[in-house]
């Protein structure tokens, strides 16, 4: 059961990832990215990371994908501009070869990793569990994160305003 689910989600995310980087139309890429993100959310759920599962859906699949799709529509890329965005297959091939070699190298190292069968305590990864850490040892970092978000909002507003 778990294995079947894992391979389905893994297959979806890899195929989606390939569509993201080879898609001609950015909208196709964005939707494929949404698929990948939802698949990864599913993997989070399998890793009993409840909070991450929902946050992934909320922030990534919900907010970021919608933002990207919005921007794609605002940019109004017509067929002419999309035509200029063809993939340079030469460059793509060289990069792909480098990535493939690196990927295989790392995967060989990964092969030895086992485990994951050990049961975790019932409340693992729940909101209470994570927030106990978030508001305990990581409080300062969490507050800084809030600050970064604020700066990000202000930055985005300033950038968007100045352009117009």
């Amino acid at each position, binding site marked *: 059961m778990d294995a079947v689910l894992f391979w389905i989600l893994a297959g979806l995310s890899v195929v989606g990832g390939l569509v993201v980087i080879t898609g001609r139309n950015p909208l196709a890429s964005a939707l494929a990215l949404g698929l990948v993100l939802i698949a990864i959310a599913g993997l989070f759920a399998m890793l009993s990371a409840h909070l991450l599962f929902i946050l992934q859906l909320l922030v990534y699949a919900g907010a970021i994908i919608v933002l990207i799709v919005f921007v794609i529509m605002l940019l109004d890329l017509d067929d002419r501009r999309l035509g200029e965005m063809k993939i340079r297959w030469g460059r793509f091939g060289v990069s792909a070869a480098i990535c493939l070699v690196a990927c295989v190298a790392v995967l060989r190292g990964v092969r030895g990793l086992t485990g994951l069968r050990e049961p975790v305590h019932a409340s693992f990864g729940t909101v209470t569990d994570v927030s106990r850490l978030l508001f305990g040892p990581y409080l300062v970092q969490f507050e800084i994160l809030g600050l970064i978000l604020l700066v990000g909002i202000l930055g*985005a507003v300033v950038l968007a305003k100045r352009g117009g």
Partner: protein
Amino acid sequence: MGEVTLGHYIGLSVVLFFIGALGVLSRKNALIVLMSIELMLNAANLAFAAFARRWGQVDGHVVVIFVIAIAAVEAAIGLAILVGIFRNRQTVDLDDMTALNE
């Protein structure tokens, strides 16, 4: 199918990371580069969550939350910059953005 171990998750994470890296390296469309970066961040998130599960400690989840938040900020700022560039230069092609080079 066999049993799913930590290696499977990390392997998937590695594959996704390199797919993202390939996108960043080979594409010129700034939007797709941005999406590839999101892909790489997600691969890292997956590894964090898998290790957290393996060692039974939720610290990994905290890091993932940080990454998600940073990714949101990055997407917002990146897209805002992109819209700004598009307004001025009518293109989102990274190879055309060579103003400092000339």
